[in-house]
């Protein structure tokens, strides 16, 4: 591939090869403070389906070690999103060392709050708001659960802010670094927020899970305990590799839900959610 970016996020190294310069330049800029892997764990390829489509109405196909057949390409203007999606795809389909939970996480005093839920529940926004409050951001997309130790490992990729979360975080962190506004993506407008220096510096440090949170945005404030069996079922649904890990996955997840309390919270805005989370954690 003509252009290549290498970066490490938490314990995972990526090599992103690309037919175009711009997506790699965006990665190099936004991930400039991240370490480089010696040997990548996963390769991502961003390529033009036909040679002339590199120049003519350029559209970015996402490939790599693990691929979804027939995935729709993205316009070159959304090349950064394609790179992020490509890295996510490698994790979702190829990660074998950790139980992967589709969740955000933030840590304070060695205790990690894991937040999971459907798209729009507020995973990324709450993690970013906690970071703005001085918590250590562990990640906005994946939590890596070590089946041997039970510890949560960080995966602090760029925070993917969508639609109304973008102005919220621009106001909360006016001095932070943001990527370009990507308009008209399949999920609306997306703007990436670079995790702060502390999140990057501490990304190799795991933390003890202390709370499993199931947030829902857009409701009056409410809170209820989530029993271990419900947490287990919801987390198997939130894991892309639970089945692949077989008994290791079962052991890791049963250990998590037996030892860590679960809470569901409904919240109408970020301020309310932060108060609820900081009271619980």
């Amino acid at each position, binding site marked *: 591939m003509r252009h290549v970016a290498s970066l490490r996020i938490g314990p995972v190294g990526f090599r992103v090869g690309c037919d175009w310069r711009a997506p790699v330049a965006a990665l190099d800029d936004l991930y400039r403070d991240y370490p480089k892997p010696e040997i990548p764990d996963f390769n991502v390829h961003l390529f033009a389906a036909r040679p002339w489509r590199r120049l003519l109405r350029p559209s970015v196909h996402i490939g790599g070690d693990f691929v979804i057949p027939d995935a729709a390409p993205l316009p070159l203007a959304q090349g950064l999103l394609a790179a992020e999606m490509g890295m996510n795809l490698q994790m979702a389909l190829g990660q074998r060392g950790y139980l992967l939970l589709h969740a955000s996480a933030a840590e304070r005093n060695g205790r990690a709050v894991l937040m999971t839920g459907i798209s729009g529940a507020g995973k990324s926004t709450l993690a970013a708001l906690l970071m703005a409050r001085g918590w250590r951001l562990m990640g906005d997309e994946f939590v890596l659960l070590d089946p041997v130790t039970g510890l949560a490992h960080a995966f602090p990729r760029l925070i993917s802010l969508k639609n109304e979360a973008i102005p919220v975080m621009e106001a909360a962190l006016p001095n932070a670094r943001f990527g370009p506004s990507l308009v008209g993506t399949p999920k609306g407008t997306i703007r990436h927020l670079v995790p702060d220096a502390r999140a990057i510096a501490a990304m190799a440090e795991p933390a003890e899970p202390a709370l499993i949170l199931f947030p829902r945005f857009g409701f009056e404030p409410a809170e209820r305990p989530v029993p271990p*069996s419900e947490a*287990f079922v919801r987390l198997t649904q939130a894991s892309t590799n639970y089945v692949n890990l077989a008994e290791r996955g*079962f052991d890791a997840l049963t250990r998590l839900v037996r030892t860590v309390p679960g809470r569901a919270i409904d919240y109408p805005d970020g301020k309310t959610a932060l108060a609820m989370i900081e009271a619980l954690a």
Partner: protein
Amino acid sequence: MTLYRAAPAATLRIVPLDALTLIYHRASGITHVVDAPVPEILEALAEPLGIDLLLARLAAGYDLLDADPAALAARLDELAAAGLVERL
């Protein structure tokens, strides 16, 4: 008369949680989330039993809401289909 026996203990990882119990079936790699009286049935079927004797054991040991042999047979069919119980 059909006799039933639980799958060998070494093939099952049974983890009681709250009201529900998790069973990881090593032979198939499938996780089952079960309610009472499934764990009790598996425990009783450590030795081969027919339906009548199994029902009597369960009724003696637990408060069965519905001591109905037909209902128990249906449960056993489901467990056999899942591989958690064997028909002998």
